Structures are given as C-alpha cells and as structure tokens.
C-alpha cells in the first residue's frame, strides 16, 4: 500500500492527519495489516483483505463486526473506527481501520534459559489465562454477537456445530481431493465427545503470543479475530499455540477454571487438539487457492497451503487408527507454534 494514497484516503476520513511512518505488520499472512503512525504517537491500524482473498475462509467483514461489537465491551481490543468495502488505496480490496495500540505481538527473551525468564513465563501464562477468562465470561448475547455469529444450540452441541460448519467450508475451498482428510472427518464425527461442553462463549480462535498486542508482558489488545466464533471455550485453549507450555499446564488450567467457574473436560480438550489439525488444514489450504491462480504469490502461501497441509494430512492419516487420547497426544508432539521459534520472533 502506498503511503501517499493511504494518507490522502485517511485525510478524507479523519481530517488533517499526516503519516509520519507506516509499516506492514509481520507476518500478517492471513490478512494484510498496516501500522500507521501520525505525529504525536497517535496512529491507526489498517487491516485489508489480501490480494486473492484471506488465508482463513471466513468473510472479511465478519472480523470487522467482531471488532465493532468488542469495542463496546470491557474486553481489551483496539477501538474500531470504520469499515470500507471498496477503498481507493487498496484498489478496491475491503479494509477496516482501528486505533493503534502500542505494543508487540512477540515477547523477546521469554524462552531464555534463566530463572528470571522462567518466572516471567509463569506471569505471562497467568496473564493470558486471566484475559481468556475475561473473554469467555463475556455475555456475548447481550453484546450483540448473536446477530452475526452462528451459535450452537447448547454447549453439548458446540463441537458438532463446529464440525458441520467447517466440513461444509472444507468442501467449498479445498484445492484438490484429499481422501485422507475425508476419512479424518469421519473419525472426528465418530469421536465427538459425549459429555457436555464447558459453556457457550465468544471464542477467539488462534490466540496467545504472535496474535495479541502485549506491553510489559500484559495483553493490552486481543488482535486478529478472523476465527472468532461462539463455541466451547476449551477450543481457545487448544488453539493457544504453546501458551500451555509456558508453565505447568495443569496449574494454568486450574487457574483459569478458578476464575471462570468452568470445568474443562479432558475429553473435549483432547478432541479439540485433533480438531485443530483439520481446521488448520482447511484454512491453510484455502489460502493456496490464490497462489495457484497467481493472485497472491507470497511464498508462505505455498509453504503453508501446500507444505504444512501435507504434513498435517500425514498426521491425520496416522490418527485414523488411534483412539482419542492417543490421537491428541500424537498431534501435540507435532504441533509447533512458529511464533515461539526465535528465527521467526527474533529472539
């Protein structure tokens, strides 16, 4: 996005503003995100649909609706400003604008091999649990989320609802036939937990380090809501991308349960671990479509949409003969969060 075009556009919306600097957020593969600073530390974040569409096969506008609704709640999130379905600076690709919140998506030094870093990891894990608890206890009906997020009938129905929703998406977006994944969907249906879910909550989807805005080891803004849904909060823990490895896993979960009053069932947790593999295959492979059409030639579209999808297809192939507990333990060994890799996070 060119700075002069964006500045002209923002002036039309915000009055006399001048861009001092702007940078594209890294990695930002799912949706294009620009951090824009004006004079005096004020600024905005411009989130735009990437060329060829986003990585995650969910309507772009829905994420804006989540931000807009959250801006009226106590959940830490950047103030939503406006949505534009056909803006000039992106040649018509939709965008929305929110206030800039100072902070970082990474916590450099968190994985150092020192006692201080270990104590810090515990504090970060507790902070994350507290903020997830805040999100999951939000009255989402009162906050208006039911108007645009499909909701399951009950906590018991949450997993089946998610399975059916994403199974339908998969068959619309996959780039080729994946018989192993089809069999995995059968396995997932057969292994749906019989027990009830913990609750029906507003869930974020991918969360934790690499997703949220952190400052002084506190989450000051939840970011990237493209996978937001109404579902069992256990799902967010399964998608917490290494946050449960920061400290004692059971202690973290007990802490969260003590705040929320929820009981996270091990069977449901295990299910979500495996489910996450399928959902990731679906989202990443959807992103490969634009690469194949030449509409988005960013190389990560191929490493993620083809390479990682193949890896996960192989994992699902092995899961087919396992019971739920064994399958969950198996996939956890292979599921690594790239944001915890110093080569990606920078330290």
């Amino acid at each position, binding site marked *: 996005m060119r700075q002069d075009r964006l500045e002209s556009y923002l002036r039309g919306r915000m009055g006399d503003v001048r861009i001092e600097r702007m940078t*594209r957020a*890294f*990695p930002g593969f799912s949706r294009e995100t620009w951090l824009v600073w004006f004079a005096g530390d004020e600024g905005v974040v411009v989130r735009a649909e990437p060329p060829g569409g986003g990585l995650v096969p969910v309507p772009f506008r829905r994420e804006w609706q989540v931000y807009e609704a959250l801006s009226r709640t106590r959940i830490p999130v950047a103030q939503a400003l406006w949505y534009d379905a056909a803006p000039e600076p992106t040649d018509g690709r939709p965008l929305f604008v929110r206030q800039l919140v100072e902070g970082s998506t990474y916590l450099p030094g968190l994985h150092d091999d020192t006692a201080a870093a270990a104590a810090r990891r515990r504090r970060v894990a507790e902070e994350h649990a507290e903020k997830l608890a805040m999100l999951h206890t939000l009255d989402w009906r009162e906050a208006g989320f039911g108007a645009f997020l499909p909701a399951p009938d009950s906590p018991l129905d949450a997993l089946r609802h998610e399975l059916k929703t994403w199974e339908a998406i998969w068959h619309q977006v996959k780039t080729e*036939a*994946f018989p192993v994944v089809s069999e995995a969907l*059968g396995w997932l249906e057969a292994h749906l937990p019989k027990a009830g879910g913990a609750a029906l909550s507003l869930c974020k989807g991918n969360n934790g380090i690499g997703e949220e805005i952190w400052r002084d080891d506190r989450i000051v803004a939840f970011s990237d809501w493209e996978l937001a849904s109404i579902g069992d909060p256990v799902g967010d823990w399964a998608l917490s991308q290494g946050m449960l490895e920061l400290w004692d896993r059971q202690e973290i979960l007990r802490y969260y349960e003590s705040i929320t009053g929820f009981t996270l069932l091990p069977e449901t947790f295990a299910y979500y671990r495996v489910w996450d593999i399928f959902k990731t295959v679906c989202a990443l492979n959807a992103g490969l479509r634009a690469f194949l059409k030449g509409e988005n030639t*960013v190389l990560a579209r191929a*490493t993620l949409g083809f*390479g990682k999808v193949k*890896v996960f297809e192989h994992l699902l192939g092995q899961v087919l003969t396992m019971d739920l507990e064994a399958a969950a333990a198996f996939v956890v060994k292979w599921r690594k969060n790239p944001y915890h890799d110093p080569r990606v996070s920078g330290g």
Partner: protein
Amino acid sequence: MQPSARALIEAIIRSFDEVVIPVVTDKVAASSLRSARTLLDHLARRVDGEADMLRADNADALAVCSAIAARVGHQAVPVIAAFLEAGTDESPQGMTPEARNEAMQKVIDATLRGLPPAGAQTGEAAEIRAMLRDYLDRRLAREREMIFPAFLGPPF
C-alpha cells in the same frame, strides 16, 4: 558431466544458509528467504523422486480400484466403475501422470465419502474402506520422503 538438478538446488540452499540468510535482518525478507529455502528443500527431494512416485502410485491406485470393482461389482462402486470404463491405460494420451493422479484421488475420495460411516458399515463397505485405507497408507509412505523433513521447519 553436468550437475544434477538436485545438486544445483542443494547448492542454492547452501548459499542461502551460509551467505544470504545470516546477513538478512529485515523481517519480511528473512521470512521470504525461509519460505524459499523450505520450498527448495522440498524441490530437491521432489525432482528425483516424483516421477517414480507418481508412476507407482497411479499403478497402485488403478490396481486397487480394479480389485474393488471386481470384488463387489461395478454397480456397487459407480464412481470407480465410471473411471475404469473411461480407460485404464497407464498414461492415456493427453493426460500427464500428475493429472491422472489427481483424477484418481478424486475417484477414491468420492468412493470413500459415499460409504457409510466407519462405525456403521458392514460387509462390502468395510472391505472397500479397508482396501482404500491400505492404499492411502502406501501413498502416504511413498510421498513421505518429499514432505518430511522439508516442511517441518518454520513455514515463514
């Protein structure tokens, strides 16, 4: 003597590792390099093995589909039957091994999705699923060398 395609790709990877990646500090450029390196690692494995893999896989898939049709009758597996009736040559004119492989995966996928759920199946359906699952296991084993460990590192 000419260097093989694999040797050339591996030389590019080495130059990335030793010369380029250590000095690139821009996050986006470094990420793009990691992705490029990952894809080159995959290509180095694929360039030698893909043709044989596709040939073996196409022959295996065809044999399994033929065996299923013979075992349960063509009318019980209409998608497989239609594929077999369209021609069973190893490489029909105008169809690359890649395209043929993709077409066969569609046939196998459609057949599996047409079966009753694994928990509710009996008799023929169980037999068909078992034969196709065995084939899929062999397929995954065939392509494993091209996927692991090339795609296990950071994808971006």
